[in-house]
């Protein structure tokens, strides 16, 4: 009577054994590529870059909470999502609070992102966001301080190269020290919470 059930259990067990012996996670294969890990743990620190309004250093923003993000405008998906979430957080702040916050969008694609393009791009999300760029060396220096990683990749897409990049938002306290790194897709209420906590620090 119970034969079919026993047979099913046997087949299932054999499948399970086969799976354990032969299954290889695909993640193992990517080890063959050059891994693009995060550069290093973020330390924070001062840097100088350029906006459409002229040069800007982090120390110019002393007394403000700074949200720092590294991305590029050709990115159709990740950067707009991060910017939209952070913008919504900025929109939640009252005017006195907003005056003490500065969001910076640093381009990791200086070849295509001109300062004017960055200005129009960031303003679309929130008028207070500043788009920054610089020489590849200046950008690399700033990115290194925050452990932001990026690498230009040819993918065969007709749209040209893409830039792989980490998508954290670094929250910098009013005293210029790194307060917190927020993961990509952190919901606006948590961004607001982090901004307010950072304000108390300085």
């Amino acid at each position, binding site marked *: *009577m*119970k034969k*079919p*059930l026993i047979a099913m259990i046997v087949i299932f067990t054999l499948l399970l054994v086969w799976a354990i012996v032969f299954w290889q996670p695909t993640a193992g294969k*990517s080890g063959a590529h050059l*891994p*693009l*890990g*995060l550069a290093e743990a973020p330390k924070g620190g001062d840097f100088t870059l350029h906006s459409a309004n002229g040069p800007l250093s982090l120390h110019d923003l002393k007394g403000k909470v700074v949200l720092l993000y590294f991305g590029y*405008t*050709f*990115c*159709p*998906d*990740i950067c*707009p*999502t991060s910017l*939209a*979430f952070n913008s*919504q957080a900025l929109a939640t702040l009252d005017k006195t609070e907003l005056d003490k916050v500065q969001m910076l969008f640093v381009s990791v694609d200086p070849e295509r992102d001109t300062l004017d*393009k960055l200005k*129009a*791009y960031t303003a*679309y*999300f929130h008028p207070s966001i500043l788009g920054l760029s610089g020489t590849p060396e200046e950008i690399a220096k700033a990115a290194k301080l925050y452990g932001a*990683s990026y690498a230009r*990749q040819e*993918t*065969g*897409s*007709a*749209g040209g190269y*893409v830039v*792989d*990049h*980490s*998508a*954290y938002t670094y929250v910098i306290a009013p005293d210029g020290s790194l307060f917190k790194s927020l*993961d*990509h*897709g952190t919901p606006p209420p948590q961004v607001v919470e982090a901004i307010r906590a950072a304000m108390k620090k300085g």
Partner: protein
Amino acid sequence: MTTKFHSIRIIACVLGTLIAAPVLAGPAAESVSANDPYVRMAPPGMTVTGSFMVLKNADNKDHKLVKAESPVAKVVELHTHTNEGGVMKMRPVKDIEIKAQGEAVLKPGGLHVMLIGLKQELKEGNNVPITLTFEDGSRKKIEAPVRQIQTEMKMNMEMKHDHEGMKH
């Protein structure tokens, strides 16, 4: 007795599926539906953007989306995003598989239809025609409304809210 009955039922189900599958299998475009498609409005001056949707396969066999075209863009490609240890990587993909009786979710941060070289500025409310081609060559024409990212986020939050509400 119950065990035997149960086994017979399982066998009947399996046989039924095997027999029914070839009969039901029509062109992929007829079995696959594109639900809630939209195009994300590109920020000013930007000539690339993504289109997102949920592809549902009512068929008993797997299907593949192999190509997308649209008159609003110079080039349309199928792309995905992967998150490898915090690093976001965007890559073109050859096709997007839609499992039998399953779905493929094209959403921000993952699979998307990439519109490259927009020929015109897309405004919220515009409808973007997109033609989807499947592995058997069958095609499906859809219209995807343009949504501002803020609208998109609001809709997502409302959906989440409804979902949470349902749990109570």
